[in-house]
């Protein structure tokens, strides 16, 4: 199956008396690296949870090609999720499992491959990510950077057509950030997946992105290539590019 086009139309989401998203609309380009940027607290992670069906919108539509998420049957949603890899901000690794079991979990759970094949695949991914001997280590012994890499391996093991990254470089040192950025780029090139990165890392955005959408006050105020974004005269965009990300 080819990487889908994801279309987000006029999404509204309110928590209590706070309206976080006020008509967010944008298109996630298929087979490209897309960035959703915005200041902290703008609702980027909420947007990601809506895109993965973890939350439902109060109004609006999210389309994966011709499948509308809020109208999808349980079976369709299940099938869609098998095509998605998601890297959570803090990794969301299962503490009760070892590093290798975490990486192999999606294949093990869906019984997609025999145990030996699953293990070999997980070990291969861990080696690619610089964690060659980590298979049997408990996840509680990992550093922040290692946790991110293990979570990335878990997201990649099912060879997803859609890859979501929630603040992949937050909390990492510059060296590790550059490494993770490289991995995102490699993952997209290798699989041709549709990638959406939630970020407020301006440098990574301008380097890696094919398409950037900027969320401000619950709406998308710019959706363009990085070069077009640099030339965008909007004061909010200028301020963000100048480094006002909090």
């Amino acid at each position, binding site marked *: 199956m080819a990487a889908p086009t994801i279309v987000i139309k006029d999404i509204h989401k309110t928590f209590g008396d706070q309206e976080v998203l006020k008509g967010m609309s944008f298109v996630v380009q298929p087979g490209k690296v897309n960035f959703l940027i915005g200041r902290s607290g703008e609702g980027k992670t909420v947007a990601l949870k809506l895109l*993965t069906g973890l939350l439902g919108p109060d109004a609006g539509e999210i389309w994966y090609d011709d499948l509308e998420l809020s109208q999808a049957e349980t079976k369709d949603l299940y099938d869609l999720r098998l095509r*998605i890899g998601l890297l*959570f901000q*803090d990794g969301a690794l299962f503490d009760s499992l070892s590093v290798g079991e975490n990486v192999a979990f*999606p294949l093990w759970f869906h019984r997609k491959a025999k145990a030996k094949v699953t293990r070999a695949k997980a070990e291969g991914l861990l080696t690619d990510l610089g964690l060659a001997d980590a298979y049997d280590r408990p996840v509680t012994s990992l550093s922040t950077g290692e946790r991110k890499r293990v979570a990335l391996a878990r997201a990649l093991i099912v060879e997803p057509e859609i890859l979501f990254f929630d603040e992949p470089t937050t909390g990492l040192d510059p060296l590790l950030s550059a490494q993770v950025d490289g991995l995102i780029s490699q993952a997209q090139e290798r699989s041709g997946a549709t990638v959406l990165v939630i970020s407020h890392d301006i440098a990574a955005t301008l380097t890696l992105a094919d398409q950037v959408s900027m969320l401000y006050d619950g709406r998308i105020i710019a959706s363009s290539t990085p070069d077009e974004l640099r030339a965008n005269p909007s004061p909010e965009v200028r301020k963000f590019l100048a480094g006002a990300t909090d």
Partner: protein
Amino acid sequence: MTTNPAFRLVAYFGRTALDSIFHLGRYSVLSLRALILSLIPPWRLRTLFRQMELVGVNSLFVVILTGLFTGAVFTLQVIYGFRRFSAESMVGPTVATAMTRELGPVLTSLMVTGRVGSAMAAELSAMKVTEQIDALTVMGADPVKYLISPRILAATIMLPLLTAVADAIGVIGGYLVAIGKGLDPGQFASRIQDIVVLGDVYNGLIKSAVFGFILASVGCYMGFYTKGGAEGVGRSTTHAVVCSYVAILVGDFVMTAIMF
């Protein structure tokens, strides 16, 4: 908002009642869903056996201690009371009946709630606040089937087994105390055979299976719907224990009234 104290009191009770109905409804839906999903393949026996080990095998020592001392202290009290009426021959049956019908099931369940129900709530709460449950969902795994069903099933299966151990150990504890207090050992045992019926044991075990269901489902419910970071984890764990205790004691009264 009105400043009239009477209205505020009515509003408070109304809100509490609505909250209670909401939680009861959501708890019922979650428990029923977990039960139904546990019947639908694929079954993950390794996960189930792991939970059975955590609930059953790892609770064995504390259950043995509870059974032993409950039987022993109850026997002391019964001997003291029955000696006044020269009814020492009834000590054995009284202890055995109390252990199998009431003390075994209830005290075992309360001990396991403190050990396992709280752990289930804490584990699921921690998984919730660190987005592990969201991660499961996004990977296409139903967290209710993967996390909750095996826990409820394991507790429902293991509680009767633990209760049977507590019953037996309690009677043995009572027997040892009775001998120590000069009662006739043969009479203690034979009168149990004469008076205690198998229904006493069965009904006690049925009660404990229900208590197992309650302690696991309440623990899982509290953990699964946790909000608010580390503070939320602590709150859910406390609520899980308190609610399970109350539900077990209320459930015990209802079942006892129906069964015996």
